[in-house]
Structures are given as structure tokens and as C-alpha cells.
């Protein structure tokens, strides 16, 4: 099993192997943990006492115009620039091919001048059609939830609080439909900010932008309610404000990202699995942690009762999960079960032996949760700066061994079957929208994205059968340059075994949704709301402290959010 310098030998024994973890069905059952990127960002905001300020709000009575919201960290300031506009209802789509949005944003590096705002006013509302500069760190857009947005403004304007059931059923006032960073469309490269303390973790700057967007949507709603209602208008009660997240619609773009960043993916999974192994390997629990865990089962039960989706598959899974959490609660209520040595491992094994993957992964989150002091430093290991390179002096005998040990899942697939190569991934000329095609139906398989990892490993394995063990990789790729990329991946997998999804991504049964959920869980999303196998809506930062609540002692207790008890 792989090792990590921070892990004791005992912990390593409790690591789940890649062939268990990196399977699509388990990845598609992922939940946020306290290592998720939003969670670690909120902890940093609180710890470093970040300051938040609305610098500008030039909007009309309908809320259209430009606003600037700034956040100051110990060393620098970032500003969210928001442009809002009226758009025709029929043009409101969550797809990449959309052309207009209710709100468009940049996260600016510093405080923008009027010239910066003028430049962005001509570009940001066009999104992919505009061009951006290294001063822009993030580009994003959002659409309103029409029924919640209008309901909130009208009720606040009349002096009332919004319907909490309606708020809970949607979870947000606006949903983002894309959040671009890392050099997209001319924005700053990741390397510009990678050494900044607050940016070292994965996706921290993008998720800072999302946090500011959430604040902006809430502030905008309160401002418009005041405009409409005058003195009668009220603001949200603090606990309701905190319960409002920001939505997100995620589609196929995230799937190629996962496959193109194997080092990063390994680091994410390694951190999570290391955290789980550390907890499972404790012979005696830390005082108070078991009680926190059993209490969290009550909260999670409520969260599940509020997690309502239209998707039949996910509804069935949630119903099953409710039953399983109930059974686990009962099992935990028998003190004998928790008083044995290695109680956390006992809980994990009990669940793994009996319950669904959805439940197993939720319990992973729950048993990690009370152990911040033990695992939170692992969040620092979840980014990556390295790129795999071909190891030219590796003998083929060694490469063959790696293929045999790590790619058994690929070499045993029968790719002569039509269903094994049913799908292909491609970029459409239509705004470069990533799409998922069916080989026997759609045109364009010649331009297939190089994401057929299993098929490529399988073909390499065939070619290696007749190649001499003594030959070096550098010599082999002179004759077989088509295998250069897959050999590089395979060599990387030896060092980073959690980097590869161990399933056929072309198979007829493949659901891109599983990849999306895996990534979004690492971000810290909750209430996955699949709309098909190709996309999902989620809620982000629901329950997270607002800027004025970051110094509260409970600022980190927002996992698996529930309707605040004050309004039940």
C-alpha cells in the first residue's frame, strides 16, 4: 500500500486501496468532508480575520448596473465586480452555449479603477466572447432562481421573512453556470497566484469568488427589497441569511478536467483517504468525538429529509440512505458497539459490510468531521504544481509490471464489443462546449478527446506483449509514438496510485454525473440534484457563515446544512 510521510505505519494499514476508491459508482456517491475546499477556505477567512466591504453599488431600482465587493486578507485585497442586466426569460439556460446571463462577474486582483471597470463592462457580460487580463483572476456568471428571487424581495419588502420551505427546496437566490479561473480567456494564470498563502489550496480563488457571489446575491435582494418596500422592508434574519447558499449548474466540462489532472486528483484523494485512515487507526477515541458523531447522525437525518430531488435514481438512493442512517443510529445507541478498541474502524466496517456506497461515503465524512485537529493540515497537500514526465530510461519489464499491477481493470475490458466504445468525448465548435457523443449516432468521433484511458492502456498492453523486456521506454516510443501519453500516465500512477479512474469512460453505461459529483464533493457542495446523467445542480456555501459571522465560534459547523431550528 502507498505511504505518506505524515502517516504512521498503523494508519497506512487502514488506507482503502485505489481499486476500491477510484471506481465510478463510489466516486458518484461522494460527499463533502471537512477537507473540502470551501470548508478550508472558510476556516482561513475566520482564522485570518478577513475584512469584507461593499465598495460600490451603482444599480437601478430593478437591480441592474455594476457593484464591487472587496475582501481584504492579511496581505492583499481582492474585488468581485458584478454586472447585472435584464435578460429575456427564454434566453436563460445553464448551458455553456448560453449568450446572456442575469449577472456576470470577475474577481479582480486588487481594487479596480474606473478604467478597469469600463474595460470589463465591455467584456464580462459577453463571458467567453470577451477577453480578460492577468488582473482578472476569475470569470463567472449566474442566473436567478426566478421564483425564489422574486419571492424573497416581495416578502422582505412587505416586512416579512421568506417562506423557509421554498428557500430550502431551491437553496439559493442565484446559481452560477460557470466559474472560470487559471488563465481561461486571458485571465491570470494559476502560477501568478500559486505562491500566495491564501491561494495555495486547491481552487481557493475560484471558491472565494463564489463566496463573494453568494454575499452579493443576498445583499442585492435585501437592497431591492428596501427600494421596493421603503421603511416597511426588513433584512433577512441572520439564521435565514446563513441558510441561503449559492447554486451551481455543472455539466460535462468538469469531467475532462479530472482526467487531465491526474497528479491533482491523486493529491485530493490521498488527503481524504489519509484522513480516514488516521481516524480508523485510533485505538481509543479522542474525548467527546464519539458524542459529536452520534449527534451528527441526528443532523444528517434532518438534512436527508430536506434533500429532495426530482431524479428517480437519486431519490431512491436518498430514501435508502435515510433508512441506513436510522439503522446506524440504532447500532450506535448500543454502547457496547462503540466501547471496543478502534471504535471508528468498527463503525466504518459495520457500514461498509452492510450499507450502500452512498451511506459508506457519507459515514466517511461523518467520522472525519470531529477530528479537525488530526486531519485539517492535510488540506494543505491538496494542490499540485508538478506535471508527469516520461521516464525514458525505464525498462519495458518494469512498465509491463506497472500495467499488470495497476491497469488490470483496463486490460481485461473487451474493447471489441460495441458497448465498450459506445461513447466519445468531444469539443463542439459551438462555444467549445464539451459534449458526450454516441459513436453510432453522432458525427465527430475522429476528433475524440484523448480521454480513452482504459482503451489506450489496453492497446499498449497488447503492443508490449511482443516487445523485449530489456528495451527502454525511450526506445519503444520512437517506434510507437502513439503510446507516449498513456505511458506517461501509467508511470505517474506508480507514484500516485489514486490518480486514475478505474473504469471504462467510453462504456455505454458510463454516467458522467459520477465524475461531476466526485469533483463537486471535493469542492464542498451539498444537495446534489441530478438533472440527467450529464449534469447536476448543487448548492454551495449553504449554511456557511456570512462575512459578519466568520468570527463566531461555530463558523466551521456548517456541514450537511439543515433548516435553522429557529424557524421550524
Amino acid at each position, binding site marked *: 500500500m502507498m505511504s505518506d510521510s505524515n502517516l504512521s505505519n498503523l494508519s497506512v494499514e487502514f488506507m482503502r486501496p485505489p481499486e476500491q476508491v477510484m471506481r465510478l459508482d463510489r466516486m458518484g456517491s461522494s460527499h463533502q468532508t471537512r477537507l473540502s475546499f470551501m470548508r478550508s477556505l472558510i476556516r482561513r477567512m475566520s482564522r485570518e480575520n478577513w475584512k469584507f466591504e461593499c465598495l460600490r453599488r451603482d444599480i437601478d431600482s430593478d437591480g441592474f448596473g455594476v457593484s464591487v465587493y472587496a475582501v481584504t486578507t492579511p496581505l492583499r485585497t481582492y474585488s468581485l465586480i458584478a454586472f447585472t442586466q435584464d435578460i429575456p*426569460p*427564454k*434566453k*436563460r*439556460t*445553464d*448551458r*455553456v*452555449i448560453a449568450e446572456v446571463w442575469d449577472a456576470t462577474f470577475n474577481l479582480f486582483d486588487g481594487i479596480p479603477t474606473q478604467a478597469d471597470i469600463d474595460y470589463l463592462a465591455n467584456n464580462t457580460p459577453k463571458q467567453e466572447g470577451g*477577453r480578460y*487580463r*492577468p488582473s482578472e483572476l476569475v470569470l463567472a456568471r449566474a*442566473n436567478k432562481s426566478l*421564483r*425564489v428571487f422574486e419571492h424573497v424581495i416581495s416578502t422582505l419588502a412587505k416586512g416579512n421573512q421568506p417562506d423557509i420551505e421554498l428557500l430550502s427546496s*431551491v437553496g439559493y437566490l442565484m446559481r452560477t453556470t460557470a466559474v472560470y479561473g487559471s*488563465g*481561461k480567456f*486571458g*485571465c*491570470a*494564470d494559476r*502560477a*501568478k497566484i500559486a505562491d500566495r498563502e491564501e491561494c495555495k489550496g486547491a481552487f481557493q480563488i475560484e471558491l472565494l469568488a463564489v463566496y463573494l457571489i453568494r454575499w452579493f446575491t443576498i445583499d442585492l435582494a435585501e437592497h431591492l427589497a428596501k427600494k421596493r418596500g421603503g421603511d416597511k422592508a426588513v433584512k433577512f434574519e441572520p439564521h435565514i441569511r446563513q441558510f441561503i447558499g449559492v*447554486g451551481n449548474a455543472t*455539466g*460535462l466540462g468538469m469531467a475532462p478536467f479530472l482526467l487531465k489532472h491526474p497528479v491533482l486528483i491523486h493529491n485530493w484523494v490521498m488527503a481524504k483517504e489519509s484522513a480516514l485512515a488516521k481516524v480508523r487507526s485510533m485505538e481509543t477515541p479522542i474525548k467527546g468525538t464519539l458524542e459529536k458523531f452520534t449527534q451528527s447522525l441526528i443532523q444528517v437525518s434532518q438534512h436527508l429529509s430536506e434533500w429532495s430531488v426530482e431524479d428517480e435514481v437519486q431519490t431512491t438512493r436518498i430514501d435508502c440512505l435515510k433508512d441506513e442512517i436510522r439503522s446506524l443510529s440504532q447500532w450506535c445507541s448500543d454502547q457496547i458497539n462503540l466501547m471496543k478498541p478502534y471504535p471508528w474502524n468498527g463503525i466504518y466496517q459495520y457500514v461498509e459490510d452492510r450499507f450502500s456506497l452512498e451511506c459508506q461515503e457519507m459515514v466517511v465524512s461523518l467520522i472525519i468531521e470531529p477530528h479537525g485537529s488530526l486531519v485539517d493540515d492535510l488540506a494543505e497537500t491538496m494542490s499540485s504544481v508538478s506535471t508527469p514526465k*516520461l*521516464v*525514458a530510461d525505464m525498462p519495458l519489464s518494469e512498465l509491463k509490471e506497472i500495467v499488470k499491477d495497476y491497469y488490470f481493470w483496463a486490460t481485461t475490458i473487451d474493447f471489441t464489443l460495441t458497448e465498450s466504445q459506445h461513447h466519445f468525448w*468531444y*469539443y*463542439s*465548435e*459551438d462555444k467549445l*462546449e*464539451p*459534449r*458526450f*457523443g454516441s459513436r453510432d449516432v*453522432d*458525427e*465527430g468521433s475522429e*476528433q475524440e478527446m484523448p480521454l480513452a484511458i482504459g482503451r489506450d492502456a489496453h492497446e499498449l498492453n497488447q503492443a508490449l506483449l511482443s516487445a523485449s523486456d530489456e528495451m*527502454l*521506454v*525511450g526506445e519503444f*516510443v*520512437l517506434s510507437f*509514438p*502513439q503510446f*507516449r*501519453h498513456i*505511458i*506517461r500516465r501509467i508511470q505517474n500512477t506508480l507514484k500516485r496510485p489514486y490518480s486514475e479512474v478505474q473504469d471504462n469512460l467510453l462504456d455505454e453505461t458510463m454516467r458522467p454525473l459520477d465524475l461531476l459529483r466526485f469533483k463537486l464533493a471535493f469542492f464542498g457542495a451539498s444537495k446534489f440534484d441530478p*438533472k*440527467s446523467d*450529464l*449534469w*447536476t445542480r448543487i448548492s454551495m456555501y449553504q449554511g456557511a457563515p456570512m462575512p459578519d459571522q466568520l468570527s463566531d465560534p461555530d463558523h466551521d459547523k456548517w456541514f450537511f446544512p439543515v433548516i435553522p431550528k429557529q424557524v421550524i
Partner: protein
Amino acid sequence: MATEHLTISLNEVLFFFTRAGFGVNAPIGIAEDFARSNMWIAENGFDPSSCSIEALNNLDSQASDLAVDVERSDTQVHFVNPNNVYLSSLIASVSVIDCINIGSRNVELIVKNVDSPLLVIAAMGANQCSDWQAIWLDESNYEYLVNFIEPGVWEMVSSNTQPIELSKGGNMIIRPLVETKKHPANAVLRQFVTIEEKEKILQTGVKVGEHWQGIYDYFSRCLVKSTVESRASGAGAGMVDTD
């Protein structure tokens, strides 16, 4: 995005050049290395499209190809195209790097008639080569010398005014660096510390000129024509979304 005289990010260099290489039928692994080389060119303040358009045009028009014969002796390794066309710098660059990484420290590498020598240099730079020297006389009889002094520090010496990115058709000699001081009296020496040059680029972006359109055209070959059906079913969400 196809506009001339554009400023792009390093990540866009990686994205577009990978697919531009793929667009002229280079295997994806070679296209990825080609894009990494172009990032290095951009990090050092050059327009990556200037030299790469030549390499891509050559492959596309079959003025070059990806075939390479490797002939070894005790003191030299020769990289030669067997088909009497230019040796594509896309295959030359990865072949040279692999040879260096295999441990050919005591030999000279001779790269014959490579179409865009700067791409070979860029591959060496992107792979943090150190204590190596490359020298070539191109088909316009311009001479260039590049020394990789230490990881991330390199210098370029030439006594002509043609920019190095336009150098074409050279016979390159790549060998361990033994001497950095011997230059012709009229030679111009420029030294680069890549990390410092990159820091400037991160603040300004990468300026690309007239050849960018050609790179984008090759990139566009990787895009699939949108149809009514694929527009409707190829990706998630609907054409109108509400909640």
C-alpha cells in the same frame, strides 16, 4: 479568440497548442510535449506562434514528417528523417529529450535538417536541461549557439539579426557544455533566467502576433461541427432553464 495581436495566458498556450499539434495528426503525447515547449518559449518572452506555425505547416503540407531514424556510434547519436523531408521539430524535440534522459551524457546528439530548431531548444528548457550546449547553422546560413548553464538559466548567442524563432532547417549539434566564454567578437549574447522572465509574463500575458490565426486554425480541426441533434443531446441542461 482568432483575433490577431492578442494577449493570451500560458494556460491558453497549453490548451491551444496541444490541440493544434493534434490537429496536424501528431500523436497526443507528442502534441502535449509540443505545447509544453511552447509554454517555455512564451515564459521566456517570445511569441510561441512564430516558430511553431512553421513546424505545423510543414507537417500539414508533408514538408516534414514524424519519422525519425536514430543512428548511434560511440561518440554520436544521429537523428535523421528517412524520407528526405524536414525532420519535424515535434518528433526531434521529444527524441532528443528522451535520449538525454536515458543518460547519453558522453555523446553528441546530431539532429539533421530539423525544421524549427527553437522547438528543440524549448523542449530542453522545459525539461530543465542543464550543462548542455546546442549549436546550429540554419538554411539561411545564420549561426546560433544556446547554452543551458544551470536549471532555468540559459543564454543565446548569435551574430545575426534574424530572430531565433524564425530560424529554419538547421543541423543541430547538442553536446555537454564545456565552455561558455568563446563567442565571436560581433556576437550578441542574451541571458535568460526563465523564472524571472516568466514572472513578467504572468503580469502581462503572452503577446501573439500574425501567426496566431494559423495556430487557431489547426486547433479548430479538433472541434466537432454542431448539429441540431448534438446541440440538443450532447450536453446537459436544456435550452431554457428555470428554477
